[in-house]
């Protein structure tokens, strides 16, 4: 209760309620992911590749108990959000803006090689902070509870090719809901890489050790293309409805506008302002963007592709309960170990497991809960994947190289499958995009 002068003019209800049409809503069945009570008995069969189902060893009751425990941790942390957290994000934003202004000021004199080095390093750090610890997390709604309209998921935009709204759709909605579900989570290889044995192999994947590096360098544009579902939309253009085409065109238009503004800033205006340092500043901005791209790509691939992280069959999530969703988030994510500085520079995505469990929890709290999550997982015989960034990134690159080739088939080596496919292309019996579908163990 609060005391406040009555402000009849501001209260919107009165005039509308009298004119409003009145209807009654139907009784609704809740989305199963909102509830811990599973209802029907569920089974967890092995996957097509023959690998075991990652949830196989747990009973439904155990899964729901895990769900209850995680709900309790979430409630505890969310209830304790306060001034300390608000001060944290405001400090990070202040430091980031100071670093960006400072670095850009130094780059005005980037003809001098020390100025170039210092300015480029500072701007790279600023751009990383802006994308990772600030942009990614604000756009997740982690700071919406502060009710500050300036630091809010509905108003924030970031230093990225992809407009915030489009990224929120493909990332927050699709990736975080369908994490590591084959065929539903496009983050599994970004439609570019094959990162799981259960993903079908195509000839295109032969080049993926190279595609991966190019994607890392120009990651922000890769994400933009991915948010647009560029490849899928163009490949299936004739099958799209007029409405889908219109949405795609509107998104494309918005994205090109954003890219033009971003390029204008980094590659035209700031170099121009630098006068005689035009070219060094342009090069510095390109370098900072590339450093940021490679770093964010590295962090993100370490989140879902290193060894020991599981994927899930499409039909395994039908009627999924909240407990099972939690479990899939834990099994489908991996952490990065390191110093406090590493954690901040990764936007605390080094706590990818914790982030996937609670995407709207303020990022500064992930490190606090990580020992409890780790203990919970170990207690339930679940693998808490973590390791230093270089080790995790190396594992991913090794996997990208290995999975450039198809899986071994009974009686055939991997190379002989490739030779067979290539032969077909040469004889004109299939296009270069010929898809090979995995032989399931049942067929074999």
């Amino acid at each position, binding site marked *: *209760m*609060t005391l406040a002068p009555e402000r009849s003019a501001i209260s919107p209800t009165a005039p509308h*309620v009298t004119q409003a049409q009145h209807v009654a809503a139907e009784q*609704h069945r809740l989305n199963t992911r*909102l509830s811990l009570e599973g209802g029907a008995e569920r089974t967890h069969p092995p996957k097509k590749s023959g690998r075991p189902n990652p949830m196989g060893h747990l009973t439904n009751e155990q899964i729901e108990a895990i769900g209850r425990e995680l709900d309790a941790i979430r409630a505890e942390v969310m209830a304790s959000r306060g001034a300390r957290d608000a001060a944290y994000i405001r400090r990070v934003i202040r430091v980031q803006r100071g670093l960006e*202004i400072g670095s850009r000021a130094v780059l005005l004199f980037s003809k001098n090689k020390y100025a170039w080095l210092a300015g480029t390093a500072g701007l790279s750090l600023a751009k990383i902070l802006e994308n990772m610890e600030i942009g990614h997390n604000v756009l997740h709604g982690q700071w919406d509870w*502060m009710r*500050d309209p300036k630091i809010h*998921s509905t108003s924030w935009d970031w*230093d990225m090719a992809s407009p915030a709204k489009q990224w929120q759709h493909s990332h927050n909605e699709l990736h975080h809901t369908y994490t590591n579900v084959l065929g539903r989570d496009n983050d599994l290889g970004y439609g570019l890489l094959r990162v799981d044995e259960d993903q079908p192999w195509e000839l295109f994947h032969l080049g993926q050790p190279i595609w991966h590096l190019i994607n890392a360098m120009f990651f922000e544009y890769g994400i933009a293309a991915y948010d647009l579902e560029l490849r899928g939309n163009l490949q299936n253009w004739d099958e799209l409805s007029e409405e889908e085409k219109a949405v795609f065109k509107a998104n494309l238009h918005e994205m090109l506008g954003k890219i033009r503004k971003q390029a204008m800033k980094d590659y035209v205006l700031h170099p121009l302002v630098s006068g005689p340092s035009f070219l060094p500043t342009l090069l510095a901005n390109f370098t900072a963007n590339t450093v940021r791209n490679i770093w964010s790509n590295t962090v993100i691939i370490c989140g879902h592709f290193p060894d020991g992280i599981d994927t899930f069959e499409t039909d395994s999530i039908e009627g999924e309960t909240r407990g099972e969703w939690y479990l899939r988030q834990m099994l489908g994510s991996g952490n990065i170990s390191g110093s406090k500085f590493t954690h901040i520079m990764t936007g605390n995505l080094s706590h990818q497991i914790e982030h996937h469990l609670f995407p709207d929890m303020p990022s500064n709290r992930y490190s606090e809960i990580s020992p409890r999550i780790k203990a919970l997982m170990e207690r339930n015989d679940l693998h808490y994947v973590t390791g230093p960034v270089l080790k995790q990134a190396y594992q991913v690159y090794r996997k990208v190289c290995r999975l450039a080739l198809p899986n071994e088939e009974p009686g055939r080596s991997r190379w002989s499958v490739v030779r067979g496919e290539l032969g077909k292309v040469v004889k004109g019996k299939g296009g270069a995009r010929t898809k090979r579908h995995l032989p399931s163990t049942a067929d074999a």
Partner: protein
Amino acid sequence: MTAGLAEGVWKLASAIATPVLPDDYLDMFAPLRAGAELRGRITAIHRETADAATIVITPGRSWAGHVPGQYVRIGIDVNGVRQWRAYSLTSLAGAPDGTIAITPKAIPDGVVSNHLVHNARPGTLVMLDQAIGDFTLPTPTPDKILFITGGSGITPVMGMLRNLPSAGADIVLLHSAPRAEDVVFAAELAERDRSGQIDLRVRHTDTDGMLDLADLDREVPDWRERQAWVCGPTGLLDAAELHWAANDLTDALHVERFRPTIIEPGEGGEITLLGSKLTIDADGATPILDAAEDAGVLMKSGCRMGICFGCVVTMRQGAVRDLRTGEITTAEPGDELPIQTCINAVAGSCDLEV
């Protein structure tokens, strides 16, 4: 010419600062500058009673001034969460140092009033709206005035007294407070009484009982000749309205209702979609998103499990309950509170900007 140049410079600055605004950088250094969102900085805090304090605020350059008796909405971060409340201005209008002041009284469970009175510190930035309200004196000032105030209802009247000449009008002030130590501005009111600006009658309701307007004939025999301004608890205001109406003097009465806004959370209720002019009756287990879809309104949607924040819309007032945790979120009239519709059900009633 200059305007065109300024506009050009601003456009260039915006293109350089994108995706943030030049304002976001300027706010780091000059949050009170002209053209910024209206803010203020608390410059001093004076304790008035055990549970009331005067908060002196230096408003930003865009502050348009106020008329004595008006109130201002202030947005302050309490434990990290921005809260907006309205308080009467008690300061001199157009003070030489440019400051304004409010005098909140801490009420039980009052998140903001307790913070302002007990925890706020000088130096803190607050958000402000321009002053508003029509509980003000006309010009020229009437010759004979009656003020009736209760508790913190003294605050807009104090704002008026401080802005009136020390002599001139014939002013009677009937003020009620539980005990002597609860009277805000007690010393200053007594001083104004001594100097002759006002004729002050203070009533301590703990011992003297509540003011009965039937006694007005005895207390202020010429009250019918006076323009009256009344501010205080709802009971006092209701009684005043009845009394003046019964005497056919409604035009002479001006009231400011300091009413408690009580958003009483319930189970289910009415969801009003302001844009669609539609009111939906929904039960307490149905997410607002689903209820609206049933009624044929397709709102923004996303993951439908509360993680993607793709369904956030603005609640203008009302209460909703988080179906995952049972947590209640309330918005008072004047608030603009973004909520997720996929995991919240209506709890009583809510008005949404859809």
